């Protein structure tokens, strides 16, 4: 899909997800009626949980930030025709690298230490993704299997590190030492200890989305990535180095997931906390990217939707006594309907038009 043909049908592209969200909420309402909760109260709680108070708004943004980055990660790989299931692991090594660079170096000025810390997270994530990327490009090994395995390696490797080599000896819990203040992202309100955890990471994530958009649509490297993703044989015919484009997209994808990890460490956690399981940002990123159809700006919207649903679900549970599981059902129904856009289009008059378009096209083949 090119940026040019897109502007024409933007309303159509927007209409389907909006209706899908509404229907998803309606389905959720039915479930709530089953469980005896009042949907209106619940959705009121959802909204106030996300936007109702400054802290709530802040927490929503905190949740959305890494999702934007992992969404971008999956989207960039997807544009080259690769399925990056490994964002989860790339994010973990990003967190590890940022934590290590953040606490081992001391006495550096912020202007050096902070970028260095974030960059190290991105590099680590990029290299982690480069392994399946290289195997795919050189030997044709399927990236899905490899990147899943890389997730496990990252998870258990981090487990080992934070319970041993990088564990803070002064603490009982398996945490790394805290990073230097010079490596922390700026919190908008009240400094590093503030209850408003929203920080400049969100700005970095939005800038990343803009840069990825520019990369894909304004640069020759992005053109190559898109060409390879749409038709690798034609790209090869045209003289594009298909392997290089794939490897490059995986590297960028990994660095975006690594960025998610770096922002978590530098903006929120300030240290590496032992993970008992995958946090799910990498996997949710897949849904975010698909929802946005790989469009970086769409990812901003899709990640926000996810963030709102996720954050709101906690509040529904607290304020309207809706089980968190029901919130999960709502979230899943919304994503289901947005992803299965054919279903939603079927309810709209635009389906007839689209179908006839196809028919007319076949005729002219």
């Amino acid at each position, binding site marked *: 899909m*090119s940026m040019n043909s897109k502007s024409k049908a933007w309303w159509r592209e927007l209409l389907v997800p909006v209706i899908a969200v509404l229907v998803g909420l309606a389905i959720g309402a039915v479930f709530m009626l089953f469980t005896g909760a009042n949907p209106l109260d619940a959705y009121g709680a959802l909204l106030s949980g996300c936007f109702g108070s400054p802290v709530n708004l802040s927490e929503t943004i905190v949740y959305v930030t890494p999702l934007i980055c992992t969404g971008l990660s999956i989207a960039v790989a997807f544009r080259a025709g690769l399925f990056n299931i490994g964002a989860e692991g790339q994010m973990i090594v990003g967190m590890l690298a940022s934590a290590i660079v953040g606490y081992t170096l001391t006495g550096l000025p912020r202007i050096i230490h902070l970028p260095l810390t974030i960059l190290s997270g991105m590099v680590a994530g990029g290299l982690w993704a480069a392994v399946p990327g290289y195997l795919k490009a050189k030997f044709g090994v399927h990236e899905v299997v490899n990147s899943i395995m890389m997730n496990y390696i990252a998870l258990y490797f981090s487990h080992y590190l934070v319970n041993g080599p990088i564990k803070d000896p002064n603490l009982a819990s398996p945490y790394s030492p805290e990073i230097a203040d010079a490596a922390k992202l700026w919190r908008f309100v009240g400094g590093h200890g503030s209850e408003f955890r929203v920080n400049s990471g969100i700005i970095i994530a939005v800038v990343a989305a803009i840069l990825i958009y520019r990369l894909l649509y304004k*640069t*020759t490297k992005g053109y190559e990535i898109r060409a390879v993703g749409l038709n690798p044989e*034609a790209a090869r*015919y045209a*003289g594009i180095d298909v392997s290089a484009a794939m490897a490059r997209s995986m590297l960028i994808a990994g660095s975006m997931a690594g960025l998610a990890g770096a922002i978590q460490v530098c903006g929120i956690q300030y240290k590496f906390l032992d993970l008992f399981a995958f946090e799910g940002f990498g996997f949710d990123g897949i849904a975010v990217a698909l929802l946005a159809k790989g469009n970086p700006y769409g990812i901003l919207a899709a990640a926000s939707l996810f963030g709102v649903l996720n954050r709101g679900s906690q509040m529904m549970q607290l304020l309207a006594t809706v089980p968190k599981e029901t919130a999960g059902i709502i979230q899943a129904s919304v994503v289901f309907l947005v992803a299965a856009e054919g279903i939603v289009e079927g309810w709209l008059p635009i389906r007839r038009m689209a179908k006839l378009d196809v028919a007319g096209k076949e005729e*002219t083949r």
Partner: protein
Amino acid sequence: MGKPQSVPVLEMRGITKQFPGVLANDNVDFKLEKGEIHALLGENGAGKTTLMKILYGLYEADEGTILVDGEEVSIQEPNDAISLGIGMVHQHFMLIPPFTVAENLVLGAEPRKHGIFMDMESAIARANEISEAYGLAIDPHAKVMDISVGMQQRVEILKALLRGAEILVLDEPTAVLTPQEVTELFEIMRNLTRQGKSIIFISHKLKEVLDISDHVTVLRRGKSIGTVATPGTTQQELAKMMVGRDVELVVEKGPASPGESILEIDTLHVLDHRHLPAVRGVSFSVRAGEILGIAGVDGNGQSELVEAITGMRRPSSGRVVINGRDVTGVPPRQVFESGVVHIPSDRHRHGLILDFTLAENMVLQTYYRPPFSKRGELDWETIHQEARRLIEEFDVRTPSEKVAAGSLSGGNQQKVIVARELSRKPELIVAAQPTRGLDVGAIEFVHRKLIEARDDGKAVLLVSLELDEIMALADRIAVIYEGEIVGIADPDTVTEEELGLMMAGAMRGPQHKAAGGESR
């Protein structure tokens, strides 16, 4: 049957079908007599397929009536058509490759044993029965994926006959066949009409239509232009009906004035994707200002040869020299940068990125160079300008340069490729089946452009499966058989028979001396 002779077996009256923005069928009349082969001729997008899809119940007509054996019928879905004795063989086969021929034949009407099990024995018996009844030999045990395309088509025809088809619709049946298979198919078709079947033959190939049909109905832009009896009409007349103007079926060209050698191929060996020898010691040269045609039956090493020249496949030995520069085994970009352009034989697989816009497709090889990009940044304004210029110059029919290439008709897609390739100021043009699937108007256009390029001093290597095309364009003809050049012929003196024999490996022509290379 039992009806008076004058009642046509099928009649379609006043069929109109509107798609958004396109009147695909505009008050079309069509009449099929019993036992005849009736060709439905028209350019891509003329409405042939739409008309047949209406007949088969895949589309519903906005207006018009259909009569079978003189009685008005209503066809809502393919099952209605089948029960009326109408069978269709689609251009793309509807077979299940891992299933056997017998399994495919009975698909949807499987004979059963004990209610739930498939009765394989009676399926095979039924397959043998039907193949004998119509003299169409098949192996019911063979898996469809293991048999040739011609055989698969035979299975499709038998499938329709098994369901009681009296009227057979064959949608561009020759598009996928080799010349020999076409001959066999025509034999089958004649046989079927002798047994009382009536056949609608969809095609845009004039020669085939003249060869096989009894009547021809020509469609143009959704309208029926007329029906003529095949004896007594000519290719010229049909082409004019089809396109709406006089068409040069053979583009006029003057004698070649060859200059120095641009492409030198020296004892080239190339393996195919299964690592079997596909090109075996080929040597020839192409000079500036001449068209060298490579004639041959499909699968004799043409694709591998072209891929080896254009850098898409590494030769196992031998040399490719372009303009004095050895480009053996270098990647495609370096080949292009030595002044080569390549019109690939498969426009969907190689030539275009269908989801890219025309503008994006127009710079597929040149996007990384000024003026289309500077320091890694694309200059969309220049790219769009260039695309508009090429669309204008090469008469690509499109609403704008911003639409996806996949939304254009095949002919216009090919024009996009030809425009892009010829605009790259080549010294050598490698054109592999440059008119595959195009109709007469578009063929004339591509041929004219290739001859213009030749007259402009370019070297042209033309690879084509269409002997007519080779005869019309080439200044010298090299015949390839089983990966070897079995002869190089002068199109002015050689006959089609001689070429045919060489293509079949039954005769060798004058050898490599005529190739101009000292390489032997």
